[in-house]
């Protein structure tokens, strides 16, 4: 058992590009679900639209990456409007159904054979990040010796990613302490009450959907940039559910909830993975093969993670950052 290695690898994941992607996605879900009470189960769809816009503008149309980013943001807004117009007047569950379906449709479309020449089918697109890589000021591996260490490009992704996270958190903080944020929170509590006070609930829900979707778009860009590749597999439904897990772990309706949630989630997931794989390996494994084999070890982490989430929901349902007082109210 190499505890030192396990811990540092886990930390590397907890602070790395993947954690950033899920953090940004969860910040978007926090606006949707945590503050407004909108059930968006298709955050992966928003991510895919943005990521693929950026990538395909470069590889398919040979244009600038930054134009791709602009197009991605624009199309994300378009998607939010498209999903919101028919559903936001209806009960909350309709949005959930429509978004989960839309995300899946988007994933199937970009992966389809007939659009192969635009989106690269199941293999996706590569080599679109030259303009981004060109800005990289780091030329040697960076990190803290013996704790975390990233290759130059990865470190550049990490720096840009966490900067985006900080800016996003700042925006969420500024918005949610304002009267505008108060309207969103009120809509989460009781739409009709808000309506009776002369607020256009539909318009506010739409604004929330768009803004949360834009944070999802940032997550989509980072997904594409972190591996310098994009493929439909990166936008499966479980991406959205992992992002929800991150949000609930950190605490919904808390500005820093997604950040803390994401770091802990990826730290735990990696740690469990390493632990079980090491504990089942070797001549005299810690866990005998009669209980668990090496091939089972990689799956068992998800079981444990699910268990951990269940325990969290039972004993600390407000998440790590949540307010216990708020929860007591729900019980009434």
């Amino acid at each position, binding site marked *: 058992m190499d505890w030192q290695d396990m811990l540092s690898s886990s930390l590397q994941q907890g602070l790395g590009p993947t954690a950033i992607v899920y953090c940004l996605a969860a910040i978007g879900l926090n606006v949707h679900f945590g503050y407004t009470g909108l059930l968006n189960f298709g955050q992966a769809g928003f991510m895919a639209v943005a990521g693929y816009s950026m990538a395909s503008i470069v590889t398919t149309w040979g244009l600038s990456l930054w134009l791709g980013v602009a197009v991605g943001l624009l199309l994300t807004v378009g998607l939010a409007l498209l999903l919101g117009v028919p559903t936001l007047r209806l009960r909350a569950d309709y949005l959930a159904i429509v978004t989960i379906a839309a995300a899946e449709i988007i994933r199937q479309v970009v992966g389809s054979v007939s659009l192969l020449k635009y989106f690269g089918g199941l293999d996706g697109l590569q080599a679109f990040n030259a303009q981004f890589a060109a800005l990289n000021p780091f030329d040697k591996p960076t990190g803290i010796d013996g704790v975390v260490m990233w290759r130059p490009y990865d470190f550049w992704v990490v720096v840009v990613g966490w900067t985006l996270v900080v800016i996003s958190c700042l*925006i969420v903080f*500024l*918005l949610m*302490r*304002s*009267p*505008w*944020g*108060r*309207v969103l*929170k*009120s809509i*989460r*509590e*009781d739409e*009709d*009450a*808000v*309506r*009776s*006070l*002369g*607020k*256009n*609930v539909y318009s506010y829900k739409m*604004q929330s959907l768009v803004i949360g979707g834009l944070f999802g778009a940032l997550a989509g860009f980072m997904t594409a940039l972190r591996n310098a590749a994009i493929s439909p597999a990166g936008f499966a439904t479980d991406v959205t559910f992992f992002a929800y897990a991150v949000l609930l772990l950190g605490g919904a309706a808390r500005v820093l909830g997604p950040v803390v949630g994401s770091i802990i989630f990826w730290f735990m997931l990696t740690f469990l993975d390493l632990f079980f794989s090491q504990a089942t390996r070797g001549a005299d494994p810690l866990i005998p093969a009669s209980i668990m084999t090496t091939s089972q070890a990689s799956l068992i982490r998800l079981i444990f993670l699910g268990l951990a989430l269940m325990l969290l929901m039972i004993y600390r349902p407000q998440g790590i950052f949540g307010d216990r*007082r*708020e929860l*007591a*109210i*729900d019980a*009434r």
Partner: protein
Amino acid sequence: MPADMIKSSDMTAVSAPRTDKSVDVRAALKGVEHQPGAPKPDPIVVADGIVRRFGGLTAVDVEHVEIQRGVITALIGPNGAGKTTFFNLLTGFDSPDAGAWSFSGKGLKGMPAYKVARLGMVRTFQLTKVLARLTVMENMRIGATGQSGESLWQAMFAPLWRGQEKRNTERAMDLLRRFKLDTKKDDFAGSLSGGQRKLLEMARALMVEPELVMLDEPMAGVNPALKQSLLGHVKSLREDGMTVLFVEHDMDMVRDISDWVIVMAQGKIIAEGPPDAVMSDQRVIDAYLGAHHDAELSTEDEEAILAAAEAETGATEGKSSHG
């Protein structure tokens, strides 16, 4: 009690001078006939032919009704009479199968609820709707209209809305004091008792500075002592030039504060008039207690009813019409 209430009332924008105005507006009702749908000299709400059906049940079927401006009108009727449904229809929370209605001369048909509220017609709910995970103060603040910080573009820049927020907070504090909720201002609204929620909802509606405030059973669950002072508040709203329409089952309250009473039963308006006249009206008593409440049924009557019922249902278990 009401006297000192009036003195401290500075909460409405329409701070009418304390003249005999309220006496005048009530005097205007003198000439109005005591009939369902009677025309009023200065109606703020006029509704015509409002029908709302739920499947086979006609919940509301109002031919014509007018609500006089500047007075307190009570809408009473037995359970299930359609009062709440009528409120919902007027305020845009539900749409009728037929009919048209107007507020201050402006047609409201098809207008969404939030626009109705902005026009100055604000309602509360029978089943209180407080924003549970917001503090009492935040519940109040959200009632204020025309907040610049509620637009997305200005929201992020606090200096743009801080001054307005401060003024709204002061106004909210005044109202909370009147409703004896000032000590609770930092508690979550969800932690309030049932009666306190009623009070909060009413105070919040007043934050909108409405012209017409529609209260659906404001006194349900409020303790008698506070009820007295609330009656004072409602009266002071009238002094401030506001129009009040409220639903209430407590007849003492209705008698005490209302200038005019409209009675609904089975979706229809069956009587109108000043409180005393209405409460002695035979149609109203019948509606509340059932038509046969004081007439002894003779044996023949009973047999006739039974026969009719059996013919209707074709079963032995025919329901008689005993109230």
